[in-house]
């Protein structure tokens, strides 16, 4: 019996167009950054192996398009996510205000089993711009929002300079793992109903 099966964790990255979702992913996976904006179409998809507490996991990251026309197409992408990353640009109030919509839309469309405790991670990106002088969303304000939504972990990053990106994704992996494992624990006692020693119900309850 294989004792350690490789766990696959699905991570969805959401946020307004241009906040830097693709750049964050590119920095995390390839250690690269490009100044040129290339709008994501639909969703891009990549996997990365991560090690966490002595175990290997595969992070399956869905980098979605922030462009407006894709916003009604969430279902296909959101389903079965283990963690949802909400990204905004600290230099854009609108992108911060929209976090609420992104979060709610995600919860509606992905309909996770326990929405209250579904793991989100919030990232405030582009802290490098203008040495922070053009930022319009304060860290305090962002943290307050995160706290109000059930203590969502919060990171401030620069995909350009590679600041805090690794740390954010470590946290994402950890949170995805938590929810992913819960799912796994849940499965056996529904599947093994027939064989297990004391199933909850025997016979037909109809």
């Amino acid at each position, binding site marked *: 019996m294989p004792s350690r099966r490789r766990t696959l964790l699905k991570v969805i990255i959401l946020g307004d167009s241009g906040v830097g979702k*693709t750049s964050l992913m*590119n920095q995390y996976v390839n250690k690269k950054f490009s100044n040129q904006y*290339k*709008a994501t179409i639909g*969703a*891009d*998809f990549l996997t990365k192996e991560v090690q966490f507490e002595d175990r290997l996991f595969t992070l399956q990251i869905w980098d979605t398009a922030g462009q*407006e026309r894709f916003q009604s197409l969430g279902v*296909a992408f959101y389903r079965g996510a283990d963690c949802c990353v909400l990204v905004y640009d600290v230099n854009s109030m609108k992108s911060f205000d929209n976090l609420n919509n992104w979060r709610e839309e995600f919860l509606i469309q992905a309909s996770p089993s326990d929405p209250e405790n579904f793991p989100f991670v919030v990232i405030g990106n582009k802290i490098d711009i203008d040495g922070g002088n053009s930022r319009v969303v304060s860290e305090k304000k962002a943290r307050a929002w995160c706290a109000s939504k059930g203590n969502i972990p919060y990171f401030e990053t620069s995909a350009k300079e590679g600041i805090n990106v690794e740390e954010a994704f470590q946290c994402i992996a950890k949170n995805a793992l938590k929810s992913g494992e819960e799912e796994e624990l849940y499965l056996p006692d529904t599947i093994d109903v027939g064989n297990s020693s004391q199933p909850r119900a025997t016979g037909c309850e109809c």
Partner: protein
Amino acid sequence: MTDEEREGEIRASLEDAPSSPGSSGYAGEGGSTSATSGSQFEIQHQEIEDDTRIEIDRISLSDSHTSWIPGKRHLDEDDASISWRKRKKHFFVLSHSGKPIYSRYGDEHRLAGFSATLQAIISFVESGGDSIKLVRAGRHQVVFLVKGPIYLVCISSTEEPYESLRGQLELIYGQMLVILTRSINRCFEKNPKFDMTPLLGGTETVFSSLIHSFSWNPATFLHAYTCLPLSYATRQAAGAILQDVADSGVLFAILMCRHKVISLVGAQKASLHPDDMLLLANFVMSSESFRQVKLTSESFSPICLPRYNPSAFLYAYIDYFDADTYLMLLTTSSDAFYNLKDCRFRVEMVLLKSSVLSEVQRSLLNGGMHVEDLPPLPHSGSSHLGQHMLPSDSPDRFKEANSGIGGPAGLWHFMYRSIYLDQYVSSEFPSSINTPQQQKRLYRAYQKLFASMHDKGIGPHKTQFRRDENYVLLCWVTQDFELYAAFDPLADKASAIKTCNHVCQWIKDVENEIFLLGASPFSW
């Protein structure tokens, strides 16, 4: 049909039909006319044509479009700018309430006033129960296309025929449907003032590259697609694995190299229109996102095929195997990603094992049909198989400096469209037509020829012979095929005709390698 019969046919129709454009409109043998050449005007007027920038970094003979930089330019312009006014070819899309949706040049928002003017013109005519199609103003043509709440307008001084410009507007509209489907109409029904621009965010390059392709990709007016030349066995191998995945719930499986088809398969009864293929390939190739990060080359996106079903999205899984070769798997199911991913894996395994991908690279290097390889004219009787060099037989013969001088009888170039297959094949350009400008000029000449040949009401067998200071152009349309050929301007008419017959024979001989045969018929 034997060769002699063909030859007889084309000669007869050339000489016995005095009313055909070949013998009336143009100078025929005389070689004096210049009226056919739009490009002349282009130079005289010194107008700005955006594609001229390619000249700067022209690199290869056959792939001029690869050096073109996509994306929107001249954002600083508006209708008050001199430079904007001088541009040779404008495309606009606007809503029926006069809101700008897309402009080839300049920022849409700064062109709001101009858009309103266009809308006023269109609705003025419509309020009289009529519809506006074409306005001529000096050397400018203004072509209109109304698609429900969406208006498309082209303003051009390129002398392209009305039909061609209108066809280009149709393609732009089709490209919009690829991105949004026809359900955008509903937004306008609910709110006539609906602003569509946000929905097209990030798609400028899709449109600019489509517009650019109007001047280099003959598929945009031939309504046919073209295949990458490959040995029959190689294409079969690719087709077999595509068929395999199509059977497992994929609607269309398409393997392409740049804008050329390697193989494609449709599920039962599903057929793909060549225009949909053009728009799909343009969408994929012009969207950098699909190949942005090496590790993330897998993408999944909603996509609409307007000729297949303009109202609904399909879902496309897109993956690049290398810089040029990509696989597109289309399904109707929005959550088929994992199934498609699995299909991709199977396709990739087979392609690697059967060396299809390396054959593809080889074909890219060798190019397609070179007019120099046309078998020499036999003294009598038919031409024979196997005299030519097949692209795949001659790996050593690519783009040498001295190649490309032209074929027999001054043949420079040809395009052959098989009507039954919906496919065309175009020869490589010789050195006499090696700049993007020259190539564009030739395509525009073909396009003009195409438009005049398809001018309704002239019988099924048609030929046309034109001579100007740039080339001799010969066109031959039958029920089975259309052939367009360009010769040296001094070419002899009789031998040009003879050469065309040989080109047709040559194509027959190598059709296994240049066309995708036995694909599900393209009916719609």
